[in-house]
């Protein structure tokens, strides 16, 4: 009888641990992961300007790798953000980083390769949880 109690107890602990792990699972990182699509900023913008719904279907939530020139370094609270030039003054590719340190040392005009999750397009196309 005692044996069963022990087995149930062990199972309960394992179950609890798995549950805890699931609730607290960590974010998927973009660093060290192969991107699903590799594009130039202008290509990404062209895809969105041609057909936003189709571009969303293709790129939303996917990890994109974008290589381009830094047009602006944006001031954001608790984090970093840079904009890549697409050749269009009104629309760039904004890349959000979870920490300010991630964009330390980047200057306007630098060529960078950024990986991030595509979250869609407003004026800019926005990539989140980026890494260099």
């Amino acid at each position: 009888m005692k044996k069963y109690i022990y087995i149930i107890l062990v199972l309960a602990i394992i179950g609890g641990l798995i549950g805890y792990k699931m609730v607290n699972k960590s974010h998927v990182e973009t660093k060290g992961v192969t991107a699903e699509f590799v594009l130039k900023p202008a290509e990404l913008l062209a895809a969105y300007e041609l057909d936003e719904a189709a571009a969303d279907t293709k790129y939303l939530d996917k990890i994109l790798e974008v290589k381009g020139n830094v047009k602006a370094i944006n001031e954001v609270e608790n984090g970093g953000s840079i904009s890549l030039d697409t050749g269009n003054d009104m629309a760039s590719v904004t890349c959000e980083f979870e920490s300010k340190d991630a964009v330390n040392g980047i200057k306007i005009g630098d060529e960078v390769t950024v990986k991030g999750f595509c979250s869609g397009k407003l004026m800019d196309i926005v990539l989140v949880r980026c890494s260099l």
Partner: protein
Amino acid sequence: MRKFIIGFFLFFLGVQVMSAQKYFTKTGHISFYSDTPLEKIEGHNKSSNCVLDVATGKLEVATLVKGFQFEKALMQEHFNENYMESDKFPKAVFKGQIDNYSKLDISKNGKVTVKVSGDLTMHGVTKKVTTDAMVSINNGKIIADASFNVLLADFNIKIPALVKDQIAKSLKIKVACTLEPLK
């Protein structure tokens, strides 16, 4: 020739005046807070757009639902998949105006509280929203802060009974934008 030059000059003057009417940002910070005794949840979006026409007081704020970041990955997943259905409704948009608008004097630094009202569209539902906003002018930039509450039920967002004590029925939404002239 002279007329042409004057015309040319006036045209550019006109363009300059027109372009200075709109102020905008692409890095506005929108955050929301769900506060219950059991769990505090907050999400932040730092790439929201805001455009204000200082001639008319009309303004528009837009944000990408998938751009909200949470402390826990699971919260973010539930927010996108179960509650906001961001594949179906990728954007949240507010279109409205500053009520009883009298033109902001951008040349002078100062602070003023205004009433803002308009239509908030998210999760496929449009509702009227009214809020106070604090607007300050700082060296040619417009800094706008607002906070208001929305009821999840108003936007047809259903919370499963299992987690109803973890998620507030009324969310607090904060908007913080620093607007610069649109060139």
